[in-house]
């Protein structure tokens, strides 16, 4: 059974039909990168996996449970799905440590000592043992994003969603975050990553999915989709991304 299974997913914002029938799945332990031009629906697809966006049609199964069912315990399902946002969304009124403990204590009902231990271990995992007591405003973008990863990991999720995690970072800070993500992938974490970092996708992903116009145009091993794409749309996109100064012949 796939960890995540999406069937015939449709999502519109007003008259804007963003997802036009997505069938997609993520296996346990798999790292899947979703690439594609802006407005292609990749972020919306990701946000449908933990139902931050409610699809109009279709189903999302997490470990076999249909989370689009109104009777589903959505909060319980979300505990198993960690999410990392483009804009970090750290809680600014809490320290790095408290950011990582608050949901453990209030949602998982862990004891303060246990939550503290897990949070410290995860902050160390992302290389921020020395920033435990810092508040988000005192951290750089890259450090904030790594705290956000530690916050999600502290819930012991079965799956991690990354929504363009490096797009809001200064270029020199991107590497630190990607290093942490690479390490997570090596440790066997199941990851669904929306990204513009082609080098990362090529190196780390088990599978790459290219989206355009609300559908998945093609998917497969990175060597195929990025290295030798079948579809013309994929080729056009990759040319623009990999060689931004290139001018299309008219």
């Amino acid at each position, binding site marked *: 059974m796939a960890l995540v299974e999406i069937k015939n997913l449709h999502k519109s914002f007003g008259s804007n039909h963003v997802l036009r029938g997505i069938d997609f799945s993520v296996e346990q332990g798999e790292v899947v990168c979703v690439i594609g031009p802006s407005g292609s629906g990749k972020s919306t697809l990701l946000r449908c996996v*933990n139902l*931050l966006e409610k699809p109009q049609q279709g189903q999302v199964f997490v470990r076999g449970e249909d989370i689009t069912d109104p009777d589903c315990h959505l*909060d*319980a399902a*979300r*505990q198993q*799905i*960690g*999410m990392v*946002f483009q*804009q970090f*969304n*750290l*809680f*600014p*009124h809490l320290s790095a440590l408290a950011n990582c403990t*608050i*949901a453990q204590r*209030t*949602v*998982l009902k862990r004891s303060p000592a246990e939550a503290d231990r897990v949070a410290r271990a995860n902050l160390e995992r992302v290389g921020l043992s020395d920033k435990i007591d810092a508040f988000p*405003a005192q951290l750089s973008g890259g450090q904030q994003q790594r705290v*956000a990863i530690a*916050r*999600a990991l502290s*819930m012991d999720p079965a799956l991690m969603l990354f929504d363009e995690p490096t797009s809001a970072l200064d270029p020199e800070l991107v590497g630190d975050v990607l290093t942490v993500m690479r390490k997570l992938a090596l440790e066997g974490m199941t990851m669904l990553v929306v990204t513009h970092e082609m080098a990362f996708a090529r190196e780390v992903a088990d599978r790459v999915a290219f989206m355009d116009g609300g559908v998945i145009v093609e998917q497969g091993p990175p060597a195929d989709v990025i290295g030798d794409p079948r579809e013309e749309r994929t080729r056009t996109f990759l040319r623009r991304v990999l060689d931004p100064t290139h001018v299309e012949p008219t």
Partner: protein
Amino acid sequence: MTSATETVERKGLSPRQRARRSRGIQYAVLVVLVLIAAVSADWGQIVSVFFKPQFIKEAFQNGLLTALVKTLEYTAGAFVIGLVGGTVLALMKLSQVGPYRWIATAYIEFFRGLPAIVVFIAFSLLPLAFEGMTIPWDPYGVVWLALGIVASAYMAEVIRAGIQAVPKGQVEAARSLGMPAGLATRKIVLPQAFRIVLPPLTNDLILLVKDSSLVFMIGVAADGYELTGFGRDLANTEANLTPLVTAGFCYLLITLPLGILVRRLEARTERTR
């Protein structure tokens, strides 16, 4: 060549000289006015009516400080009621349930649009209208209730604006960690909202300090007098304004530091933005 040059030459003054002359005239007018006031006013009379040391002393001896404490107690209790009521109303106004929104809107618009003194007069008449009705903790209960009802309407709007100023991503992050909506509101949204509205809430507190003077409308007993009631009473007895002026200065003792606090808080908010 140009007309500007001609003007300058005609008046014989550069812009800087003209600005200096203008400033000089303004100072001269001020000095003349102050001199006229100083010479024409009957200073002895003014001091004896407004600032007579004998009555200032008497005010202190007759319980000015007790009245000051009463003002603080009335204000503090009403502020707590206003804060709790305002938060509940703000959450109701943002509720998904229509009737909650309508009730909150009706309450807020009603009590914001009404002069506070009308509410106080109504409370003073309640025991007459409903015979035998008593509000516990006399006189605190009735004062806190009357002031709190008005304050909660004002504070609800401020708190609602604060809640809406918390970025949407904060709720999304909380929900993605599995927090139910209520928990996310309590642990993530409200702490940030209150931080945002601290300066305007302090402004409401200043208004509340002054509104507590309306308590005399309810007709509390003499031992329940706050500053205004106390000052008015003593001023009536002595046929002299000094006690009222003294009480008035006590208000400034509370409101001026709060005003400075608001400016500090605003500066801090500005910095962290």
